């Protein structure tokens, strides 16, 4: 206990010392980007010759269609482009052999493919992925919203069920901002930042990397490195999934949807303080969003938004979905370690 307080003191002292020398956020971002691109190039170069794989499609009206695609290069999006524009624009995630697969990740073997859309008969997995992508977008907006003098630490985004009414993004701001409470205007400017990203229609590019590469990407953030180690121990293959949106690299607990343009109504509703945590003053930013195909009337939107302003709390702080497995683990209690799949 004494050692823990001593460690905390040392960590805070060291973090404040390194804050003076730490590179600016733009530099950190470009460095992360460079490592990501390098790893992406290396993974693409693993398939120098074009080999063909057979992809059989499943879905209403598509059962039995066989596509011949390239190994390591074709993504489920390229399969959708062989079908129709409707499939290309409306599919947000894919199911490859029963496993959730981001739309921009290359296929590696002959498989069965199902394209998931928001108006399917059972879009539960897609809803969870959409909620995760909205939190990831909120995290990206928060990282770029503040001036360079203030540091922003994104904590692991908690897995919130859709029925709770809002997605959350836990963040720890600079100690100088501890007494700052956001006004409606600042929330509105955050919303505008998110709307700009949505308008640019950036794709979330997935990349499966070994934990060492992920640790290199997040070399400036101790909190993110711990998260990487946690996720690496959780996943069955021992790899970690990184996503890049524009020039922002992020870590995610599960698959994200294809691109930011799929969200249409997006609003940052509230920021609640959760008190002091191991990294500083915890804040939970909440938001509400609906996809392009399921837009709400403004009366319905107003009521959902009022509900989204209330604090979302749940028994488990972060429900970890082991990557590569099915996303149906039960919620965890706060102190027990995660069950190994």
């Amino acid at each position, binding site marked *: 206990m004494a050692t823990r307080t001593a460690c905390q003191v040392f960590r805070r002292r060291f973090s404040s010392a390194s804050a003076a020398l730490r590179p600016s956020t733009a530099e950190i971002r470009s460095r992360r980007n460079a490592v990501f691109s390098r790893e992406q190039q290396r993974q693409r170069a693993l398939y120098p010759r074009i080999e063909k794989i057979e992809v059989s499609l499943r879905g209403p009206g598509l059962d039995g269609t066989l596509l011949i695609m390239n190994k390591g290069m074709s993504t489920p999006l390229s399969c959708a482009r062989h079908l129709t524009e409707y499939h290309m624009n409306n599919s947000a995630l894919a199911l490859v052999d029963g496993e959730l697969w981001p739309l921009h990740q290359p296929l590696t073997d002959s498989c069965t493919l199902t394209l998931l859309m928001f108006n399917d008969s059972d879009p539960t997995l897609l*809803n969870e992925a959409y909620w995760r992508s909205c939190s990831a977008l909120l995290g990206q907006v928060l990282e770029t919203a503040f001036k360079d003098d203030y540091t922003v630490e994104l904590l692991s985004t908690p897995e919130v069920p*859709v029925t709770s*009414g809002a997605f959350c993004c836990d963040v720890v701001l600079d100690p100088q901002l501890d007494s700052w409470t956001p006004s409606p205007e600042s929330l509105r400017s955050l919303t505008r930042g998110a709307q700009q990203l949505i308008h640019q229609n950036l794709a979330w590019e997935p990349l499966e990397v070994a934990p060492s590469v992920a640790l290199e990407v997040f070399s400036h953030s101790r909190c993110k490195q711990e998260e990487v180690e946690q996720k690496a121990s959780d996943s069955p293959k021992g790899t970690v999934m990184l996503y890049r949106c524009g020039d922002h690299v992020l870590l995610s607990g599960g698959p994200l949807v294809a691109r930011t343009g799929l969200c249409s109504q997006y609003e940052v509703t509230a920021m609640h303080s959760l008190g002091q945590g191991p990294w500083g003053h915890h804040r939970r930013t909440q938001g509400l969003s609906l996809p392009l195909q399921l837009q709400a009337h403004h009366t319905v939107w107003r009521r959902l938004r009022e509900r989204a302003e209330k604090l979302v709390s749940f028994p488990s702080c972060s429900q970890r979905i082991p990557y590569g497995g099915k996303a149906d683990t039960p919620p965890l209690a706060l102190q027990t370690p995660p069950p190994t799949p």
Partner: protein
Amino acid sequence: MRLTLQMLISHGRVARRIGLGPESRINMLRNILTGLVRHERIETTRVRADEVRFYAEKLIDYAKKGDTDEKAMKMASFWLTEKDLVPKLFKVLAPRFENHSTGYTRMARIPNRENLDRAQMAVLEYKGNPFPPLYPVKKENELTLINQLLKGYREERARARVLAAEA
């Protein structure tokens, strides 16, 4: 007879003239009604379907009297030209509409015929037929994102109401 102007003007006359004359009209409607009883869903011109509708429902009313009834059997054997449909009428269609008092048929208009005559077409069916519905019922999917959000919203409102009622 006296050739008056009223003979040429047909304002307010509801009886339709089909075919070559009244006998031809009854024969045509008889054929269409036989087809309807056999197949339970047929496609004809709009006017013929509208005319047959009245006779189809009257035939069911007669069939409900039972096949022992003399008048009902005479009507059935007159109107159904194919005699193997008479038992079908009494044993299948009459029991089906036991609890209905009116409205045994449904008519739906469809796009005009592709021929040169471009006739207005309609589909006439007996209710309770085994085919897929003419007007398919669109079921709201409870699991879409917006419906799940609204479900959460409704549950929270119910919880708040319970708490307010207790307090």
